[in-house]
C-alpha cells in the first residue's frame, strides 16, 4: 500500500507507476489517473488528478521530473501525491483548496529520459527523440515550449544539453501537456519543479522585460520561500528566471504565463553545491516537506486570488 511505500529511496518508472495505481485504488473518490499522451518511445504519460467533484473547476498544475536526472523531483512528486491524500479532510488549507479547485500532478514528466537514467546514463537530462541529420539524441524539454522559442538561452545544436528541438512542441512530452492545459482551459497556477540550486523563479526567462504581474509574483515568491525556510532553514533566492539565473528561452512557465496562467513558477530544489543532481536519498523527504510548504503558499494564494 502507499502507507508502506518507502518514500526515502529513489524508485524506477515501474515502481512509480505502480505507486500511482495504488494511490488511485486507495482513494477512488479523490484521485484518478489520466493518460495525456505517449512519449517518443511510446510510454504512457500519466497525470494524477485530485478532485472532490464539480465540472472543470479552476485548477493547479504541478509537474516534476521534466529533466530526467533531477531525481529528487520525481521522488518529491510521489511524496506530494501521498501528502494530498493524507491532508484532504485534515488540513484546513488543503481541504479548502480541493473543495473548490482541482490539482493535477505529473510525477514523471519525461518518462523516456527517466528510464534512460536508470538503465544507461544516470545524468541524462533530455528526451530520447532522434533528430534527423544528427547522431545526437534528445531535446531539452524545457527549451521546447512556444515562448521565445529558439531565441537566446537555448541551443540549436542537437548535441548540447539545451537543444531546443526543430520546432516548438516538437516533443510529445511537451505537446501532451500543451494540448491538455489548453483543452482544460481553466488552470490558474502552473508550477514546474526542478533541481537544483534552491531558487523560486517566475516569468520571464526569454526576455529581460518584467512580466505584467512582476510585483505580485515577487511578493508571492517571497512568501513561498519564507514558508519553505520555516521548516529546516533552507534558503532560497527568488526572482524572474532572467534576473535570478540566466536567459532561458522556450521554458514551460513562460509559455504558461503567456497562456494567461498568472501564477506560474519554477522551483529549483536542494542543494546549493555539494551533490547537485546526486542528492542522497536521505534528503528526499526533508526536501519534499519543505517544498510542500512553498507549494501550499502558492496554492492557497491562488485559491484566494482567483481571476
Amino acid at each position, binding site marked *: 500500500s502507499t502507507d508502506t511505500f*518507502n518514500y526515502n*529511496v*529513489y524508485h524506477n518508472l515501474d515502481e512509480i507507476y505502480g505507486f500511482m495505481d495504488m494511490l488511485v485504488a486507495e482513494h477512488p473518490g479523490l484521485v484518478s489517473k489520466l493518460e495525456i499522451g505517449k512519449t517518443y518511445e511510446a510510454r504512457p504519460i500519466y497525470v494524477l488528478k485530485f478532485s472532490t467533484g464539480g465540472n472543470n473547476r479552476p485548477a493547479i498544475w504541478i509537474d516534476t521530473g521534466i529533466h530526467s536526472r533531477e531525481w529528487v523531483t520525481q521522488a518529491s512528486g510521489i511524496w506530494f501525491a501521498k501528502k494530498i491524500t493524507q491532508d484532504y479532510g485534515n488540513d484546513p488549507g488543503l481541504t479548502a483548496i480541493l473543495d473548490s479547485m482541482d490539482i493535477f500532478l505529473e510525477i514523471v514528466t519525461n518518462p523516456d529520459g527517466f528510464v534512460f537514467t536508470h*538503465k*544507461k*546514463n*544516470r*545524468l541524462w537530462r533530455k528526451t530520447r527523440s532522434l533528430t534527423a541529420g544528427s547522431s545526437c539524441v534528445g531535446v531539452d524539454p524545457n527549451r521546447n515550449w512556444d515562448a521565445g522559442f529558439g531565441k537566446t538561452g537555448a541551443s540549436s545544436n542537437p*548535441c*548540447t*544539453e*539545451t537543444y531546443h528541438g526543430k520546432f516548438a512542441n516538437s516533443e510529445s512530452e511537451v505537446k501532451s501537456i500543451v494540448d491538455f492545459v489548453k483543452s482544460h482551459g481553466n488552470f490558474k497556477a502552473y508550477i514546474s519543479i526542478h533541481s*537544483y*540550486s534552491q531558487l523560486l523563479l517566475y516569468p520571464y526567462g526569454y526576455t529581460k522585460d518584467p512580466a505584467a504581474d512582476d510585483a505580485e509574483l515577487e511578493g508571492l515568491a517571497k512568501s513561498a520561500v519564507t514558508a519553505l525556510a520555516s521548516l529546516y532553514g533552507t534558503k532560497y533566492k527568488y526572482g524572474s528566471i532572467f534576473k535570478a*539565473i*540566466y536567459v532561458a528561452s522556450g521554458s514551460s512557465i513562460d509559455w504558461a504565463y503567456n497562456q494567461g496562467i498568472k501564477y506560474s513558477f519554477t522551483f529549483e530544489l536542494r542543494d546549493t*553545491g*555539494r*551533490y*547537485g*543532481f*546526486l542528492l*542522497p*536519498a536521505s534528503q528526499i523527504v526533508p526536501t519534499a516537506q519543505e517544498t510542500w510548504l512553498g507549494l501550499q503558499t502558492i496554492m492557497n494564494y491562488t485559491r484566494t486570488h482567483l481571476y
Partner: protein
Amino acid sequence: KDDFVGHQVLRISAANEAQVQKVVELEELEHLQLDFWRGPGQPGSPIDLRVPFPSLQAVKVFLEAHGIKYTIMIDDVQTLLDEEEEQMTAFKTRAA
C-alpha cells in the same frame, strides 16, 4: 551503464562578465564533452560543470590561465553513483 569514474564537478566563480564569456567559450568546445549542471549566468553566480576525466587537465589549465577561480564540488561522480545504486539495491533486497 555509462561510467563516470574520475569525472569531477567543478564549481566555477566567474568574477566579471569577461570571465563569464570565457566559460561560455568552454561550452562551445564539444570535444571536451562538458556537462553544465548550472550554466553561465551573471558574474558572481556559481557555474557548476561536470568534466570527464580526459578533459580535466585541459579545463583546469584553461580556467587557471584566465584567472578564473574554481573549487571541486564532486571529486568523483562515480563514487556518488555507486553509493546511490547500493542504497537502491539494498532497499530492493530488503523489500523482497
